[in-house]
């Protein structure tokens, strides 16, 4: 009797658990692929992109595949990190050690591209590695 009850409850649990896992279909508002962005030399990003003209294929050919965020509004953001621009010397290094964030990717400079839903580059942003706050 106990075994039969146990089996029945287990079966119901499996059915309802499956319902929990699949009942709500989520259409993500953004998808990011792959998990890591490409690193490029800062010089390669100069004149690599023309706003309003460069296509995704153009950028891929110049800078390579990288991390992409695809938003459900049709915009895409492509992220490149600079291989030769990061905090790592002098006072900057001391600050990083204190915060325990020496290896954080946001300590690197980055080149970010916004593609409009049309597929053309709408904006770009070059962010150097963060500067130090003024002393005093």
């Amino acid at each position, binding site marked *: 009797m*106990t075994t039969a009850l146990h089996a029945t409850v287990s079966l119901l*649990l499996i059915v309802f658990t499956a319902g929990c896992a699949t009942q709500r279909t*989520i*259409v993500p508002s953004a998808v990011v692929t792959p998990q890591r962005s490409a690193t490029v030399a800062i010089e390669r990003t100069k004149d690599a992109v023309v706003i309003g003209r460069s296509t995704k294929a153009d950028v891929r050919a110049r800078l390579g595949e990288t991390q992409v965020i695809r938003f459900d509004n049709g915009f895409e953001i492509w992220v490149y990190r600079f291989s030769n621009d990061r905090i790592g010397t002098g006072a900057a290094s001391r600050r990083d050690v204190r915060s325990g964030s020496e290896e954080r990717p*946001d300590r690197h400079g980055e080149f970010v591209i916004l593609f409009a839903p049309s597929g053309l580059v709408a904006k770009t942003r070059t962010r150097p590695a963060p500067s130090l706050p003024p002393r005093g």
Partner: protein
Amino acid sequence: MTHAAARVAILLALLLICSRAFAADRQEKPAAAGTTALPPVEVSALRDPVEKSYRKIVRGMDLFEERRARLAPGASLRFKLLPRHRDTNMQGIALNIVSDRVNIPVPVAADNTFTMQRSAQALKEDAFVVPNRGARTMTWRTEIRTPGLPPNTRRLGDLRLECLVGMEADLISNVRDFLGQIIRSIRAPGYCDQREPHYLFFAERPLWSVTLVAGSRREVLSVDSLYAGITRDPMTPTDLQYCDCEVLLDRTYYAPLGDPSWPNDTLIHFEYMEDVPASGGTDAPVAAPGVQSR
């Protein structure tokens, strides 16, 4: 026998929990493709509303009064409701402070912000603040704004106070039910004083760039501080269900709240994915260093 009964009891408890989740999801599930869309129906009493503790909200209001002089002396405190689903009806939300003998309507403005009145009776009865929307359909935030700021900007001191009050009032809801409660209870003290706490702020429109400006110092936030940090910690669709940012991901950013090198008067400039034409009545976003705009 006792052991078997205990196992059955555990399984039944799990079944009950799952059934509740199933019922909640049924409330929120959007219409399937191909079905006829019906006009939204206002439900005056929901079984599982997205309610908040009145006592905790009042504690947040007390903290606002306590800290405002240092962080945001010219600002006022409002609360704000934000959607978590695409199909959440954000028009005409009714909000009430409710307990056994208290039912106080709270007027909600057209932008879904509101202020909370103080009621000794509601405090005594441990009332809840209850909107007529289901659980996980909305999230709550504080709205602390210093008047007279330039367009497309926020002030860092205001955001610092928003985080403090929001955490004190227990407004965030981007946590998994059981484990999340434990994590939240652990991280609550001093959470907003961390260098860059993962307290989500929401801009008015999809964000392209966020720049901190304090005097002559300017710094563009890393892309890792935008979009709920998904470039650093990618989220699966399942993760997204537990994030306040579920449908507002493109508007989210983190701020360096605990970085003392940025003063409270630091201005945070936003540039959006789509620029609003000057004829639209809104000033163009402030261009940040290193940013090209079409």
